[in-house]
């Protein structure tokens, strides 16, 4: 049943129904409401979990890592500087193959200090070995948490995941969300069965020292698991659709791409605004569509190439910047389309919370059609 609620509350409610056994997190804007809600649920005995309060994000994810290694289903949430403080633990969690699920309430990084949204934080952890899922709205955000646990805990995968949703734009927005009941979540997501865990009766080491004879093979195995996660995500998404009637059985989602000349590519909440802009452009007779990237890791290169094989021009909206090179999504889309004759242009947009309107999306399409791209969009040149 659809109910109107804040995005952060929807996340807390679905996380509760995923039955994490250990939660550790440190509050940071705009993630705070999620962990406040969960702390209250634990205090009220609505959620039978250990909630470990800590003094920093580094400790929060370290506590999660230990609890996961001991065989628990664990959860955390963070954003921005908090995620960057976790960076070392992020690499360790992936390397130790612990299926931790963490919500990222996407926010820009300082300096200059900004509490507002872009996706620089999770993009900065691109190479950490975590799966990265991006949600367009609060329904998709909630649903992707269930899928994330299912994919991560698959014994063929055993990797951690970020479920990313845009800070403030989704975290603080009240909109209708249909939350599955506890029984429905239980039917979709069985209890966690660890593949291996810390056990005094059967001692083992995790995250140990690997000499040059072994290190590369560990990295290779992580990379293979990341690639296997493509099929695991599709399978988990298909099962989700069968049970709940919402389709996440693809790493990408096309919107009005049939017969499109120009395709926009984007991740996260900007896709909603872009869909409305596409509708307006279609009404005006322009052949424009959108390809939404749902999983940034694993990156859906083959899916992008397949979905866009008939377009002439691609405009990528990047809410991040790899300083000195361009947007992270645009760079990877160009690699995915290498060898085709499709013109791919990248637009750095909406950094630090700058608002994006339908007319901005249309203006980007105008630029792409003129062959102008690989640029920041919407700069206030008067303050430069």
């Amino acid at each position, binding site marked *: 049943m659809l109910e109107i609620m804040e995005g952060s509350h929807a996340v807390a409610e679905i996380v509760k129904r995923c039955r994490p056994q250990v939660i550790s997190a440190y509050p940071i804007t705009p993630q705070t409401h999620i962990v406040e809600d969960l702390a209250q649920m634990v205090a009220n005995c609505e959620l039978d979990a250990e909630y470990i309060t800590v003094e920093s994000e580094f400790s929060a994810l370290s506590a999660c890592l230990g609890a996961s290694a001991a065989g628990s289903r664990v959860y955390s949430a963070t954003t921005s500087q908090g995620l960057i403080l976790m960076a070392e633990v992020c690499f360790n969690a992936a390397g130790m193959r612990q299926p931790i699920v963490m919500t990222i309430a996407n926010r820009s990084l300082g300096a200059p200090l900004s509490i507002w949204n872009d996706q620089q934080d999770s993009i900065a952890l691109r190479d950490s070995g975590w799966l990265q899922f991006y949600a367009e709205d609060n329904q998709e955000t909630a649903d992707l948490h269930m899928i994330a646990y299912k994919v991560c805990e698959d014994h063929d995968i055993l990797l951690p995941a970020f479920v990313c949703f845009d800070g*403030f734009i989704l975290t603080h927005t*009240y*909109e*209708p969300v249909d939350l599955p009941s506890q029984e429905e979540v239980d039917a979709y997501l069985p209890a966690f069965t660890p593949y291996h865990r810390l056990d005094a009766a059967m001692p083992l080491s995790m995250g140990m020292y690997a000499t040059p004879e072994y290190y590369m093979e560990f990295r290779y195995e992580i990379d293979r698991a990341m690639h296997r996660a493509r099929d695991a995500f599709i399978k988990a998404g298909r099962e989700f659709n069968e049970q709940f009637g919402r389709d996440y059985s693809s790493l990408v989602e096309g919107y009005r791409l049939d017969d499109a000349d120009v395709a926009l590519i984007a991740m996260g909440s900007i896709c*909603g605004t872009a869909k409305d802009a596409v509708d307006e452009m279609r009404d005006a007779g322009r052949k424009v569509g959108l390809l939404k990237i749902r999983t940034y890791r694993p990156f859906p290169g083959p899916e992008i190439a397949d979905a866009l094989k008939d377009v002439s021009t691609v405009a990528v909206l990047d809410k991040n910047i790899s300083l000195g090179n361009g947007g992270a999504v645009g760079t990877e889309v160009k690699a995915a389309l290498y060898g085709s004759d499709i013109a791919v242009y990248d637009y750095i947009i909406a950094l630090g*919370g700058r608002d*994006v309107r*339908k007319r901005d999306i249309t203006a980007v399409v105008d630029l792409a059609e003129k062959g102008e791209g690989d640029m920041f969009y919407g700069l206030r040149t008067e303050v430069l």
Partner: protein
Amino acid sequence: MTAAELIAFAAFEGGVYAQAFPAFGVERRGAPVQAFVRFSDKKIRLRSQVYEPDYIIVQDSTLIGDVDVFRGMKPGSIAIINTEKPDFDGRVPEGVKVYVVDATTIALEELGVPITNTTLMGAFAAATGEIKLESLEHALRNRFSGSMADKNVSAAERAYSLIGGAA
């Protein structure tokens, strides 16, 4: 933001999709803040702020002059302004219908505090017809309990009746 959230809740109760969100990052009582609400028969995908409002609610009329509260309003749109002075000093764009309500006094009398969210919701419901009084009451009883719910409902009803007479 509380008012926006409650209006969205009440509108959704009335059978339309609704979305409410703050102008992010500066939510604190006493500072000029904005929050936005959209209603639609279809699922709402648009995430930008509202630049051309059909309706505005001004919770503190002393903002008028410092902030162009009427910006983007078109003829036929409606402004609801909390003020003690019906003849407030502000340039209203042509064709914008203005309702004034002394929500602060109503809130002080009904709630004992000058928090005008729920009073202005009553005024909004009456002035725009976008939400029904019973949806509004349901939203308030969902948010508040016991005597606080009763007090907020009567504050909203007083403003609803006042504006209802004028509309």
